């Protein structure tokens, strides 16, 4: 079973996504902010995919992606970010920070799972 780490400051989103993922047969790890998530990565949490929001109070998603990518263990881990802006600049920034791809909110369950399938074996 693949494990997916979810980071979002909105509890609703965390819950709705994790529900979809559980039904599709994924295990989930959750964090309500970037600092907590980074702590867990530093501790070496075993995950196959990180999905993070970009706009969060405190450390934002882009900084989180940068920090996680710096850790050797997560060099090749796929990272997806959630974004409402289809703005190219934001995407490019996140891509440059080390993200693999993105999910545009609001996404249907199918869109979400299809995108995950694209990056997780």
């Amino acid at each position: 079973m693949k494990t997916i780490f979810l980071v979002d400051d909105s509890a609703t989103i965390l819950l709705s996504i994790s529900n979809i993922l559980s039904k599709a047969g994924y295990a989930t790890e959750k964090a309500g902010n970037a600092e907590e998530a980074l702590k867990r990565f530093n501790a070496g949490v075993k995950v196959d995919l990180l999905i993070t929001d970009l706009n969060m109070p405190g450390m934002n998603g882009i900084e989180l992606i940068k920090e996680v990518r710096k850790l050797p263990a997560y060099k090749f881990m796929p990272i997806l970010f959630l974004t409402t802006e289809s703005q190219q600049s934001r995407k490019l920034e996140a891509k440059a920070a080390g993200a693999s791809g993105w999910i545009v909110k609001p996404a249907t369950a199918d869109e979400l799972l299809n995108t995950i399938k694209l990056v997780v074996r």
Partner: protein
Amino acid sequence: MDELTSVFVQESREQLAEMEAGLLRLEQDPHDADNINAIFRAAHTIKGASGVIECGFIESFTHKVENILDKLRNGEISVSGPLATLLLECCDHMGRLIDVLEAQQAQPPEDVSNQGEALQVRLTDFLSATEAPPAEEPGAMPIEHESPVEISGGGVVITDGWHISVRFGPNVLRGGMDPLSFLRYLASLGEILGMETIPDSMPEAEEMDPESCYLGFEIHFQTRASKADIERVFDFVQDECELRILPPNSKISEYLKHIEELPEDNMRLGEMLVRCGALTQAELDEALRQQAALTNNEDAGITEGDATEGHQAPQLGEILVEQKVVQKTLVDAAVGKQAQVTEKKAKESRMIRVQADKLDQLIDLVGELVIAGASTNLLANRSGQTELVEATSILSRLVEDIRDSALQLRMVQIGETFNRFHRVVRDVSKELEKNIELQISGGETELDKSVVEKIGDPLMHLVRNALDHGIEPAAVRMATGKPVQGHVALNAYHDSGSIVIEVSDDGGGLKKERILAKAIEKGLIQQGYNLSDQEIVNLIFEPGFSTMEKVSNLSGRGVGMDVVRRNIQSLRGTVDVTTQEGIGSTFTIRLPLTLAIIDGFLVSVEQASYVIPLDTVVECIELNDQPDNKHYLNLRGEVLPFLRLREIFGIEGEIPFRENVVVVQFAGQKAGIVVDQLMGEFQTVIKPLGNIFKHLRGIGGSTILGSGEVALILDVQALVQHCANQEENRKRNAGHATRLLESR
């Protein structure tokens, strides 16, 4: 008829005219693909529109025509004389069907539908002829050799499937992306028929970075997904990989069809290709970026001063083809569509359709304005206030400008009328087995719409005459050393306030002796009468004159040249002919630019004013010592019958000491009109008389003078006729009186 139908009728007539023109051109140049497309498009539009208005009989017939045009367009059949003739007949039939629709009949009458069936049978014959073994005809449509689209490092697309060529960038793995997952995901969209891994960029083992990706793939892929869907698979690695997605061949024709069906908006090339699915937005953006970069380089080059002059920034289409993103056929099709749309748009934006009666109303109002302006002027002059006079004179100058512009609105080019004769000349020359070419010039010359409408018949007569009697049979032409092909020319130009239309031919010319002999035989002139050559040839316009012994079914339908002259005269125009025996003849029609305004000659009897059209006035003389009962006078040795307006219109009052005679001429006949006073030339707006005055003889219309008075415009033709009759009666009565005397 509802509006939609009337729009359809109008539009279809236009399309039909275009179709006909195209078919005629087709005979000249059977390989003009643009022309064939235009013909097809016209038929296609009519069919489509008839479907929309649910007119089944037009739709089904046009569908058959469209089928054969489609074959023609695809080069499956080639242009031949009989086919062109058949298609022209189909055009005529479609015209008849439109007439049926316009007449608001639910179904065409039996004879029309029988004709339609006969044509359909002939169309089917042509269609089935093509199903025979497709022998490669020489001169069939040349097939442009399309160089296969290559893929960098790969082979050539052979089978009918998508070809995806992808080169992953070195950083893909480090970004958390696994090339394999893309391929797996791709497989979920369709079926990967074949795949080749391209390890070309893989370095030697010692230089290889295990964290970098060096792989590329050539994938042969079958799917029902669109190009955009396929591209979306690689969305996340778009910036880091090179991606080419080539559609299967079947897809290309689909794209072409899409391009054809795109709405006629002003679309950019890239936009069109994206809309039809041949190009994805990302590919377009990339190409545009390249174009911008290249253009910038150009600019930089120019500032450095070493740029070649006239070197343009590369076209988007060129970039796309060069990058092997889109096939050239697709770019060409899109460019073609673009040109077609722009052309149509340009045409539409240049033209506004206005109902003719609205224009007439405007002209009418402008006429009123001219009259009102004139009376204001008169009052201002009478008041003697200089400032007021100045102001009104500026006003009246503006009114004159407005009048001219308004009249200009009614002007249409004569070209359309001329173009109708291509068909006439073609059909008639086939029938007569003569080889005749029609040359048209001056088609852009403009004249009043109502004149254009009425000049068609006289022109037709003259052209048919030229074809039938003018141009000699080929054998005769050869014998006289002329080229076998005869020429009939239509020409139009402006000449000092009137328009001149010439119908000329390089045929045998008119034979003066025969005309003279005929005229004497018919009693038109007396033996021994001395006539100039010019007068002799113009005898052909006299009533009851026709030199052709044998009546052919083309001209000589009992309608002589006198009718032509009468028709033209009713437009206040003239016609005459110049000819040179053995070299040809030229008929010259001279028409006023407009029927709404004339130059008149103002006269008065007692208090009433009358306008005599100036072009009929020959001279004015004083009437001296004329006994009341005589109705003719001696004009330099010639008998001139005259009439007194006073008598004809029953005007009472004292006959003034001095009376004047206006000598007028119409259709070669002279007559005098006796009036009290001559008041000079006067440009006037003709206002037609109401229906209740229709039966009045001698009055052709009315106009309003500057003073606000009404002046009647005299119908000179009727008055001259009246004079002639009066003269006849007088002669007869005189004879009667003599006999009475004798019997006493």
